[in-house]
């Protein structure tokens, strides 16, 4: 009885938190849901020659963008709210991806080129006789998911614990995260590691018994991705709006002050870092079945830097800015690379410079300013800019 009661209380609180005026960016969630549902319906229900038909390619592209949006949120939580600039989140993303990749690899069974029911093709090619110990159990979906969370989570915990306890901050921390992802990339490139070397894991056939090439599976993957993006968004928003979130912002702005108030700032940072790494890992897990491959290139330091650009473009410290930034920049990337493949990196660099100089708070900041202008009509005094819940408009926009 008691448990039921507290469950009801908790869910009520969650609902209340989601309904908070002004802080809510629920319209974004709504749009995401409506768009993906409409796309899915258009793909499954309409004939291929209808003008409103959405191709499976587009469905998969959208799913990929949403995985990136999730990864961007993970970076925003640590960078935007806590000032920890991680340039290595691609590592957690890729580790999650490899976990899923291993599961999908084991699902192939004897349908591989060599037809070996126990060994993935690349192991047969390397003349391996049996499965390495760390591949055991990965044919079980639940176990693979568990490992794909456990490994990045543990890595983030150990790395964060060492770094934050020794009070490594700022540029030094960023460089360490780059080194982390670079080291993992080199390791995964090696064939002896048993993760497929530079080819990575690919040629997947099905997931949970569903054919990965089928339209319905693709649509289902997109819907699951959208659902998890929304859940992550809501959970993260609840976290940043709690007192925990306020402490985290306090750490960002004045860590020493926070410490002298009695907060163990390193504990806060470590747990936030682990949470963020887990989100990145989930994004990676969703990414792999949709793009159909995971290789060591995902660990490339450049990938992690790109994520930071998405967040900067969208506006850090807002969560929804990260989603918007990831979607826009990746859409631009798809378009741009189709036209001029070699110029994308320059465009990305230019974008970063422009945003840093002219839009330090990203598109979300611009949006906030527009809202403020609309609200500030003549006759409205300064009192109006503060709200009952103790948040000023400036903070809401922030």
């Amino acid at each position, binding site marked *: 009885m008691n448990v039921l009661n507290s469950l009801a209380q908790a869910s009520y609180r969650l609902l209340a938190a989601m309904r908070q005026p002004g802080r809510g960016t629920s319209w974004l969630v709504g749009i995401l849901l409506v768009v993906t549902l409409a796309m899915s319906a258009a793909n499954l229900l309409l004939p291929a020659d209808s003008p409103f038909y959405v191709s499976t390619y587009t469905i998969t592209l959208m799913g990929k963008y949403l995985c990136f949006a999730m990864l961007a949120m993970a970076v925003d939580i640590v960078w935007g709210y806590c000032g920890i600039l991680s340039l290595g989140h691609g590592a957690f993303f890729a580790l999650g991806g490899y976990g899923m990749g291993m599961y999908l690899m084991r699902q192939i069974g004897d349908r591989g080129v060599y037809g070996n029911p126990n060994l993935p093709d690349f192991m047969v090619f390397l003349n391996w006789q049996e499965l390495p110990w760390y591949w055991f159990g990965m044919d079980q979906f639940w176990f693979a998911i568990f490992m794909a969370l456990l490994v990045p989570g543990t890595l983030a915990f150990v790395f964060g614990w060492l770094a934050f306890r020794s009070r490594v901050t700022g540029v030094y921390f960023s460089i360490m995260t780059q080194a982390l992802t670079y080291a993992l990339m080199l390791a995964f490139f090696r064939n002896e590691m048993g993760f497929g070397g530079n080819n990575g894991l690919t040629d997947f056939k099905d997931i949970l018994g569903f054919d990965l090439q089928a339209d319905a599976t693709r649509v289902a993957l997109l819907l699951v991705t959208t659902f998890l993006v929304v859940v992550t968004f809501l959970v993260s928003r609840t*976290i940043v709006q*709690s*007192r*925990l979130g*306020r*402490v985290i*912002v*306090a750490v*960002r*702005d*004045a860590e*020493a*002050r*926070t*410490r*002298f*108030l*009695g*907060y*163990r*700032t390193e*504990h*806060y940072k470590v*747990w936030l870092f682990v949470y963020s790494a887990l989100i990145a890992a989930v994004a990676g897990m969703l990414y792999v079945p949709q793009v159909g491959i995971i290789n060591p290139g995902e660990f490339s330091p450049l990938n992690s830097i790109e994520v930071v650009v998405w967040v900067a473009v969208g506006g850090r410290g807002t969560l929804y800015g990260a989603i918007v930034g990831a979607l826009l920049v990746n859409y631009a990337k798809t378009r741009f690379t189709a036209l001029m493949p070699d110029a994308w990196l320059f465009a990305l660099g230019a974008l970063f410079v422009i945003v840093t100089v002219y839009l330090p708070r990203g598109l979300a900041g611009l949006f906030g300013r527009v809202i403020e202008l609309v609200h500030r009509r003549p006759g409205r005094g300064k009192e109006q800019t*503060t*709200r009952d819940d*103790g*948040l*000023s408009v*400036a*903070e809401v926009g*922030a």
Partner: protein
Amino acid sequence: MNPINHFAGQARELMRRDTTWPFLVTRRRPVDVSKNIILYLEELNVSFDGFKALNNLNLYVNDGELRCLIGANGAGKTTLMDVITGKTACDSGSAWFGQNIDLLAHDEAEIAGLGIGRKFQKPTVFEAHTVFGNLELSLKGYRGVWRALTARLSGTERDRIEEVLSVIGLEDVRYQLAGALSHGQKQWLEIGMLLAAEPRLLLVDEPVAGMTAEETERTAELLTSLAGKHTVIVVEHDMEFVRSIARTVTVLHQGSVLAEGTMDQVQNNRDVIEVYLGEDA
């Protein structure tokens, strides 16, 4: 024979019924001030690259006292606060909080939890939070990560914040962002944050820097009213201000105590006149 005796001795020590095993002693125990002294600093030495910022410093502060620390720039006043609050490790010496707590064995967060609050020389508040939010984060209470996730502001806590707001006179700006406050208001907010944490000992570094005469006066009133219930150590340059609040003044010079006494005694001290007051007299 000898090692056996040694171990037997240790075992007997472990089995003694009048002491508690060290690892069972709770980290957060109340400070014992039965001798009426709350802070013992003895033979403290701190050096930065060979430069002695604190040099065999000895200082005792009574419980409930309002103590002023004065001294020229670079005399080591801020460094002293850094040592007490665990920010700076000292090379040698001892620092005890009451009879029972060795400050040198704790870090910043633990020391804050023991009941030592500190205002920085440069006012430091959480600029992205409202005045109210700043005080909320400072409230006395548990500081753990998981507790913070589910923390709700209780009625008593809300009342406590309102009380502090009225003490520091910032009721009208409670929902403004702290970053938008004036310099003087930030100083007060930071003092308010200390009060919200209800510490036993407050270390206040240069509270009236950048304040108008009127603001200075109100700060003096506030700090005097705190003494008794709290112990307050104030570092200040403004001699008028020190004269208006201090009962006991300690003069630091080149990292050690030069003189101690009432303002008049200190001002008439020959050494002090020579090295400090003499400059602007």
